[in-house]
């Protein structure tokens, strides 16, 4: 039964996460910031590298470092605010290329073209870093390596008051299949736990 075996290998979460380094990825959906924070915690939690988070200054919601601290020590976080998206992209390119940043998170509000997306890919490749664009729904660029849709999921068991159950679904993948997982962030150990899906009734 070779097909079944291949299927089980491909749905393995840890072969898809963290997504490929030296590439730029995209995340959308209400839990996209949580995805970025979990990725930052996964990539930089142990090695002490820096995460660069770029956002446009007019955006109302801001990252709360006290909440972020359960993913990654805010010491390792740098925030840049730009007036326009084009500045954010330029700064992201610079940061990706520098080689001193492990992850660059860019909050985008407008669709980016193929050339901008490609430039981010090249910069990530040159600086051996990972880029992650946080986008509104349906605004992805074709240049992205993978795109994840992240939605929070109501934890029916209700056991833990600080449950972070969410659904991460790959909706675009240049080299692989599209799958989805339910995951939780475990704040004490600072790692991602994959939750098995409840049986269908």
């Amino acid at each position, binding site marked *: 039964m070779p097909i079944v075996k291949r299927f089980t290998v491909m749905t393995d979460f840890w072969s898809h996460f963290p997504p490929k380094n030296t590439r730029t990825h995209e995340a959308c959906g209400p839990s996209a910031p949580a995805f970025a924070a979990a990725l930052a915690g996964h990539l930089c939690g142990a090695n002490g590298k820096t995460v660069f988070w770029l956002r446009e200054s007019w955006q109302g919601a801001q*990252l709360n470092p006290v*909440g972020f601290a359960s993913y990654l020590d805010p010491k390792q976080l*740098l*925030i*840049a605010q*730009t007036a326009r998206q084009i500045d954010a992209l330029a700064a992201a390119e610079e940061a990706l290329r520098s080689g001193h940043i492990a992850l660059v998170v860019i909050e985008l509000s407008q669709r980016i073209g193929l050339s901008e997306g490609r430039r981010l890919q090249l910069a990530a490749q040159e600086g051996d870093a990972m880029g992650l664009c946080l986008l509104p729904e349906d605004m992805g660029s074709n240049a992205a390596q993978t795109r994840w849709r992240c939605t929070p999921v*109501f934890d029916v068991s209700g056991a833990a008051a600080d449950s972070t159950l969410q659904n991460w679904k790959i909706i675009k993948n240049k080299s692989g299949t599209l799958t989805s997982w339910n995951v939780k962030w475990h704040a004490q150990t600072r790692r991602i736990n994959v939750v098995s899906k409840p049986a269908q009734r």
Partner: protein
Amino acid sequence: MRKRVVSMWFPNLPSDRVLRAGALNGDDTRPFVVTHHAKNTDRIYCLNNAAAAQGLHRDMGFSDARAYCPDLQSCPADPIADARFLQMLARWGKRYCPWVGIDGVDGLLLNIAGSAHLFGGEDAMLDDMRGRLSRAGLQGRVAVADTRGAAWALTHFGQRAQGADIAHLPVAALRLDAKTDATLQRLGLRKIADLTALPRATIARRFGPDVVLRLDQATGARDEDISPLKDAPNYGVRMTLPDPIGLSGDVMAGAERLLERLCAKLKDQDMGARKLQLHLRRVDQAAQVVELRLAAPMRDAARILPLFERGVGEVDAGYGIDQIRLTAIQVESLPKAQITHGVATRTQGIDDLITRIGNRIGLDNIHRFLPADSHIPERSFQIAAAAYSRAEGAWAALRPRPLQLFAPEPIAGAGARPPQHFRWRRMALTVGHATGPERIAPEWWLTDDNWRSGLRDYWKVDTVQGRRLWLYYTPQNPGWFVQGEFA
């Protein structure tokens, strides 16, 4: 060239400094003293003329002085501010001559040889000095003589009517210590003329070499230096080119040579540049300026040079550039530091990155979070400019805090428990679990308009639709708001 030394003495420098700032609202007929704490009591350090007219004097106990003079105004002494003020006066003195030194804590020395004619002669110059000092509200005594010692004697002991001869002045005018002065007085040597009448060998044997030295310095037999103030270091270098250049590679090569010279200068002074300006003068006299703001004080030419690349690339060279000037506009002290392995290079790389990005989007727009000691969610952290702060402090959250915070958005709801159904951002949400309340009281010692509504009871609400929101209820002004979203 013969020296001509002007000595300026400000007998009431501390009190004049305070009064200039308007301590008595310009009414100098009221007695005023500056006090200091010495010998276990507050004493008068300096006093104005009105206070002296009331019979007060220096080193008098302050409580005694207040008994004499009940409406006495006072102010504690600040010798550091006085010294700074004297430095300012020395800088002002440079309008008369370039050679200005500081004499003790309350005097200036100017070597005006060769510059007096610019003011219409020595007398006119001294009158000008006196006029300007009195207009500035400073009591100053000014005298000129051939030597520093004689000029000092004239300002401290001379009368203007008696002319410039120091022979009739008391021996104390020779800058002797109090003990020697008393000994000389006791022997009947009251005036300098009495002392010069004696054989030198006798003076040296009886009173030590100091008296002879001071006498020689006053008469000019022995030279005495005035050490002028140092000029503030100038962190600027420039290069003028025989032929105009236009390629950005050439400009960078020029900048490299200038940077090496500037960095050597900075290294001598233990300083680091914070803001640099590369001034490129073109053949047609127009100038192009490239500014570079650095994320950390730096004096490493090899690291600064690549940071100029972007700015130099944007320069319009026109017909060519024939002068390059590099100035460190803003410098900070950068003491020599131990070179450590590993850690330093990483932060240096990030500093360079902050510089490069900061020159595009503004250095103040790159932030880092610092923990703050407050229960108020918006104030439990500080946002600091990354270039001017260091990442430090421990983050602690006793209760789960949302990943994102936003300005409170009102929702419909009544009662102290979260509403079962509510609409938020055009979504109909149903509450699955609610955890709370966590009561947070406003900080009464700070006025914060957002907290006018009083206490807040925070609830973490897991909706059946999935979103996990941070709601709060204000019991003093009933209402429900959404302030944050959890992961």
